[in-house]
């Protein structure tokens, strides 16, 4: 029994979004939907600018708020700590979408709820999730949190600082941000521009 987790070293991430594309291709995520999203933060005044790319996806929380609210048991946690949705059981009531503090779930065009699965089908075969494998700057690491020599634990041990998003929710997310300048910092309340809105309109 493992406790799978992921880390993203934000000092290494170059914002190429290869992980977003790899996820879409690997999981056949339908057009207009994404399981991963990138938050690009730029602060300061030219020429003194600081920036950061933060990739967000399902955080596979230890204390996942989406699991207990599901009325049919369609959202569940595997024994390895991966939070999954069973489309055959999902009625699309959107209780889990509403309950997710990170807004990382969406309605699949087929009707059920969809989100990142940590590529459980690949993990079951002993492979890494598609986003981890494809990352050209090796910013991502994946593995068992309970094993000291797993890639995720090694990456966390090397990092200057480790953050999780919105720790105050008590959800205990298992996606860790390493060496972040802004996560949980003052930039959280900055104005947000949603680029995908333009994509949806076909611009």
């Amino acid at each position, binding site marked *: 029994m493992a406790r799978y987790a992921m880390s993203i070293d934000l000092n290494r991430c170059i914002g190429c979004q290869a992980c977003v594309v790899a996820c879409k291709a690997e999981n056949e995520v339908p057009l207009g939907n994404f399981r991963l999203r990138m938050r690009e933060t730029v602060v300061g005044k030219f020429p003194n600018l600081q920036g950061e790319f933060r990739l967000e996806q399902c955080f596979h929380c230890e204390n996942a708020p989406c699991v207990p609210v599901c009325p049919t048991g369609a959202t569940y946690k595997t024994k390895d700590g991966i939070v999954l949705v069973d489309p055959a059981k999902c009625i699309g009531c*959107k*209780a889990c979408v509403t309950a997710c503090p990170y807004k990382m779930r969406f309605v699949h065009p087929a009707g059920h709820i969809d989100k990142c699965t940590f590529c459980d089908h690949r993990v079951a075969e002993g492979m890494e999730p598609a986003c981890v494998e494809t990352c050209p700057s090796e910013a991502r690491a994946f593995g068992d949190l309970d094993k000291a020599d797993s890639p995720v634990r090694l990456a966390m041990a090397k990092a200057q600082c480790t953050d999780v998003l919105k720790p105050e929710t008590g959800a205990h997310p298992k996606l860790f941000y390493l060496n972040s300048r802004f996560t949980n910092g003052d930039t959280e309340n900055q104005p947000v521009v949603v680029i995908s809105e333009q994509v949806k309109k076909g611009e």
Partner: protein
Amino acid sequence: MIEITGVGEELVRTWGWEVAIYLFLGGLVAGLMIFSGVFRLLQPGRFPRLLFMADLSGFPLLSFGMLFLLIDLSNKVNMWRLYTTFQISSPMSWGAWILLVTMAILALRFVGLIPAPRSFSVGGLHFFAPPPVQEEPADEQAEVKAPPKPSPLVRFGEKGWGLLHKLAVWAGRFDRLLAIVGMITGTAVGFYTGILLSTIPARPLWNTAVLAPLFLTSGLASSGAYLCLFLPENEHKRLAPLSILFCGIELLLILAYAINLGYGTLAAQRSGAILFSGIYGWAFWGLVVLLGLIVPAVLEQLEMLHHQVKFIPARVPPVLKLLGGFTLRIVIVYAGLLSFI
């Protein structure tokens, strides 16, 4: 500046007006069940019109509300899954089962209104027609003509009505029991409409214990207003003190809600600002509090003191209260979806 690529947070589809309609109708029917239960047990025979309207409206109104729940589901083909499991931690699972019991009770009450079968004709079809009188054949040798066989539609109609009437007679034997169970399940439905929202910590506007009693009280006020629309003046006047009392309790709960949000965490304060200011603020203070609670309560109080405002018809306060009750659900659902930790 922050830019987001991918599935934008603002584009995530969640709940909307469909759920708000259900929450309103659920609360309304909950109130009808509680009212009819209380009057059946405490003052039997005193409010016949009230009981008739409650029995007549409960089943169709809740069915209509549940239809909107069905519309909201994005994977409707799997809806039956709700009734193959019971998830103890899921308020929605509790709600699904409570609704099932409630619908059964409301259906029995609705069927109870069906009168005993009697003869009538529709479109040339004669239902429950008396058997034809056999004439004495003139010739002893002549064959006795068998009466014409009724059409399958007539037989189906007669059998269906007969069965429903038998069910109504059977249910009538448990009138008091149905009243007690109806009050319990009605309270559960009214409370549940608030619990559904308040058990979601990711939405600080909803995540408060005040919401369940607020929705239950609002449901009672709305159902009182709904019944007043159909009651004769003498019954209406007897209900008015109760109606004013529920308006008062609802105002107190709204005050507690506002204090709770105002003195809460930063997330709660931000959420409170969404509800109490801007477009939602206008709807909340204007339509819910002023027009939906204070104005009708004052008008009803004047009516009780025999100072009825001449140019305002008696049906205006109940309509305002119903409008306020519905707006309360709409603004809380939509403002809550904008609130975040």
